[in-house]
């Protein structure tokens, strides 16, 4: 895969179709992959990688890159392509200035899960198809099954279909029947008090690093309430539980109807807060109340929050359909 992608990137760069390539390169460790922009063949030869740790969603970078002179080549996984199409829908990216290569996806690995399995001193993790080979600083080498260490979001992947592309590498997949709302339902089945405790326990760990906001492809406002001191909620560390709740409700609400459920917020959270569950709660409610809607799936359907019907449910529906009391 990596070699095919590299070859295509070099071709398109050399024949002048694109000016730059948006892809991934290795960060401090082989399993710590970071998005990167390549502008020359040398850079690509040297740093270009694509493996099980290329989880980062590249679509948000295209908001800025597509405004530059000349085309940008971007490699998009299925979940990234939903985000990109959603950005198109919101007129945040210039489609004509992006050349998209869709890449077939069979799931990304979660390095934290590997660390949690008890292997100490990890130096390098190599992606070997179905296997991951972990090398440690103690010169040990362990072979793991990739499928046992997939990221949570990939285990509940909604779709393996790239929804927008100029060409594909690998065979495009299908929309999947996922169980992504299972955990939301589990929380709904708790009592109100248990839910409160569950979320206090999660949200109180938040250090307000804003990583979740920064990474989110739906959060592309140029001015943000969380940067505005006058908003009263811009303070870095939340002062108390109210601010924690406030930050998380507003963050999730702001992307309701636009969140494609790409899972980036939970992936980047250094405190392992399952933020995607808040987004999924909104998605689940909107599906139930206003009909199935998948953000980023197409360019035409009106998102539920900028739409209505005369006979929508009343807010009191929460009394019947809400979680346990």
């Amino acid at each position, binding site marked *: 895969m990596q070699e095919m992608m590299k070859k295509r990137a070099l071709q398109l760069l050399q024949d002048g179709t694109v000016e730059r390539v948006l892809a991934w390169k290795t960060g401090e460790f082989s399993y710590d992959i970071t998005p990167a922009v390549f502008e020359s063949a040398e850079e690509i030869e040297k740093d270009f990688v694509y493996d099980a740790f290329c989880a980062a969603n590249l679509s948000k970078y295209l908001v800025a890159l597509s405004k530059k002179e000349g085309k940008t080549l971007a490699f998009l996984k299925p979940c990234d392509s939903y985000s990109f199409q959603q950005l198109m829908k919101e007129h945040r990216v210039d489609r004509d200035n992006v050349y998209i290569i869709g890449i077939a996806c069979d799931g990304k690995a979660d390095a934290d899960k590997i660390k949690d399995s008890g292997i100490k001193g990890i130096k390098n993790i190599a992606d070997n198809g179905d296997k991951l080979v972990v090398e440690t600083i103690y010169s040990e080498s362990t072979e793991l099954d990739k499928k046992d260490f997939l990221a949570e979001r990939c285990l509940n992947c909604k779709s393996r279909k790239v929804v927008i592309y100029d060409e594909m590498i690998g065979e495009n997949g299908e929309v999947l029947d996922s169980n992504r709302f299972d955990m939301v339902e589990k929380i709904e089945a708790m009592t109100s008090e248990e839910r409160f405790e569950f979320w206090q326990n999660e949200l109180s760990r938040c250090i307000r690093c804003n990583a979740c906001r920064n990474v989110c492809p739906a959060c592309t406002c140029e001015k943000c309430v969380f940067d505005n001191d006058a908003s009263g909620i811009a303070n870095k560390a939340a002062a108390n539980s109210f601010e924690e709740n406030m930050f998380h409700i507003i963050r999730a609400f702001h992307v309701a109807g636009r969140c494609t459920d790409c899972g980036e917020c939970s992936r980047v959270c250094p405190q392992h807060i399952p933020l995607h569950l808040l987004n999924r709660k909104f998605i689940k409610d909107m599906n139930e109340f206003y009909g199935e809607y998948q953000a980023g799936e197409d360019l035409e359907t009106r998102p539920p929050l900028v739409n209505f019907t005369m006979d929508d449910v009343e807010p009191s529906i929460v009394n019947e359909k*809400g979680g346990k009391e």
Partner: protein
Amino acid sequence: MQIEKKEFKPTIVAFCCNWCSYAGADLAGTNRLNYPADVKIIRVPCSCRVNPMFILRAFQRGADGVILCGCHPGDCHYTTGNYYARRRMTLLFSMLDFLGIERGRTRVEWVSAAEGAKFAQTMNEFVETIISLGENKRLEDLRCKK
């Protein structure tokens, strides 16, 4: 020394749209219908003006319950504002419930300019619900408490 046990006086914030519910509240007043003085009315141009953040902010500043009143669906002065407000509040209330905030603390009611009696009755009911729920603890901000 004896600790004085004070009766719980809830603080209720009612966002009322200018064209229907605020006029409804006025009518309740001119008709001398009683509703508790604990209800603080905030006039907004339309129910749709109410951003989810307003509701949260009201709780932060000490509200024990927040109610939004607007024109009946179909009667909004700006034609469709309340339809959007209805979706927004449904989702917000459902999220608050998901986070474990008592769902009785939030409510939406459609009250027309002619429904002074409905306004008074709604407020009486809502205040009773809040009294039974007690003080807002789960969504309070101690820095704002007197």
